């Protein structure tokens, strides 16, 4: 992987989390989360499992509901207003650990479904866009197959293309390579690096520290529902401030 030489993003914050708290029953999963992501910024979130990283990014498109604080995405505040939620979801793409492709539809239909039904694009235009993105994730020849006929790495690339077809402002990645066989991780990360290089605003939850070093503008470390540390990757990896970060990094980078 080569260095992604993108200018450090400046400008308006596109995601803002202010004093966000969330509970699962009695369990306090998110504690006073404050996070700002600027347009074009690449944020990598890491931390031990159960630290609330997935829950945090799932709050950004309201797959999870937060109970206190404010979340503002692309200028719209997330409340229980369905109109707002749907408006935000149109602008925010999400890639899941388990791909979550629609198994009853072909790859092409997976990609064109939302553009046709949500963006109201004509079918032909939607299909052209879809083929373009399939080309970009390097599997144009799989358009007419069903997801079950593809390998995990191919499925995840289709899932990325599916999100991109909605032309989102922001892409959220929730451990996109955790369910993949080792030899398929690279093909997915390559696509993500390319995306980062093109200036997409990205928030990635991942344990791939090589990827994080390459693309991240900001590293965020979470533990037990809190953001413990944040900073540019150079400082984050070389001189972490918190002991918890040091411990985590030593565990994850030791082999």
């Amino acid at each position, binding site marked *: 992987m080569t260095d992604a030489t993108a200018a450090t993003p400046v400008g308006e914050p596109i995601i803002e989390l202010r004093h966000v708290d969330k509970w699962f029953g009695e369990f306090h999963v998110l504690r006073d989360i404050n996070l700002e992501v600027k347009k074009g910024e690449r944020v990598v979130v890491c931390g031990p499992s159960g630290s609330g990283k997935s829950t945090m990014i799932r709050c950004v*498109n309201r*797959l999870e509901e937060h109970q206190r604080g404010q979340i503002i995405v692309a200028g719209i505040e997330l409340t229980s207003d*369905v109109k707002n939620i*749907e*408006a935000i*979801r*149109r602008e*925010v*793409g*999400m890639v*899941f650990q*388990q791909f*979550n*492709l*629609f*198994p*009853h*539809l*072909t790859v092409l239909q997976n990609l064109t*479904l*939302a553009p046709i*039904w*949500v963006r109201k694009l004509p079918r032909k235009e939607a299909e052209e866009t879809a083929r373009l993105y399939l080309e970009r994730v390097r599997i144009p020849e799989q358009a007419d197959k*069903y*997801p*079950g*006929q593809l390998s995990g790495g191919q499925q995840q690339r289709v899932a990325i293309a*599916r*999100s991109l077809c*909605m032309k989102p402002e922001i892409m959220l990645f929730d451990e996109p390579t955790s369910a993949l066989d080792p030899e398929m991780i690279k093909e997915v990360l390559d696509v993500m690096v390319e995306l980062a290089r093109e200036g997409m605003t990205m928030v990635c939850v991942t344990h791939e520290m090589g990827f994080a070093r390459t693309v991240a503008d900001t590293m965020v470390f979470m533990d037990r529902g809190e953001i413990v540390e944040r900073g540019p990757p150079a400082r984050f990896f070389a001189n972490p401030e918190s002991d918890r970060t040091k411990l985590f990094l030593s565990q994850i980078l030791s082999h």
Partner: protein
Amino acid sequence: MADIDVTQELPLPVERPRPAASGPIDWLRTNLFNSIPNTILTLIALYLLAVTIPPVIRWALVDAIWHADSGRACHTGGACWAFIAEKGRFILFGRFPYEEHWRPLFAVVIFVAMVLASCNRRLWGRWLAILWLTGLIVVGGLMRGGILGMSYVEPELWNGLPLTLILSVVGMVFAFPLAIVLALGRRSRLPAVRAICVGYIELIRGVPSITLLFMASVMLPLLLPTGMTIDKLLRAQVAIIMFAAAFLAEIIRGGLQAIPRGQFEAADSLGLGYWRRTRLIVLPQALAMVIPPLVNNFISSFKNTSLVSIISLFDLLGAANAALTDANWQGFYMEAYVFTAVIYFTFCFFMSRYSQMLEREFNRGRRR
């Protein structure tokens, strides 16, 4: 990093699967006589067939009487197919005026044609709905008459096969969408909607269908204001729809529950919203998953329509029973029931084969 072509570097030895045994002797050996218990079972089965098949053939074909003027001529101990020749039309169409039998026949043909058209997945859509609507109106017109020079025939006389088909097909066509609504409603986040759906399903499911038919035919008229009547056939039809919907709803709910959460989340994250998510992602997968129990239910409700005999509507089976009361043709239960059984079986067998085909088609994408 350059890709390494593994096949070139390490040619793997080629091994072919051993060819499977072929020829009838091999087939017998591998399928019927491949072990001692299996051989014993095969011999028992052969013995049972040898004992049962010849008498059946003798009854149905050898000793059968095909032409007779009345039942008294049938005394050979064989089947009296003359009874069917004489009473077949009555069993099929009941007391519908004899000269007008082309009308129910035509109605049956329309039903069968509509069902066959619906089997073609490429035709699914708005046109099919229009076809069904016009088809049902035409069937209604044919049976009822009173228009286009056809004499009026009261619904009391719509007997036999057309009645069975009307009750079951119309029942399924209306019960199915209602069932989908009930199943979705039962999983709704709105407590009132959920309570109504749960209440409906549990109430209807917990009551015998005969009770429901009786209520529809006897109680309902008492509750209605005087002077207002709803046709008995329509009341039975509504009862059947209500009953079938409750059962179908539970089957569909099973399918809905089997959809992984990730599918909902993926649809949500694309901004599809509840209705599009339900229509495009959830229902197609849920319904495809429950085809076997759905068809099972269709088949059993097709046969259960014969319960309407107890409120004296003469469906196929009811007409067969009525045919048996003729003083000239008494005691030919076997013939009458074999005849109706063959008709029921034809329809049910078709449904079951079609469901297997659908299942294969829907599971295409899941095969790895």
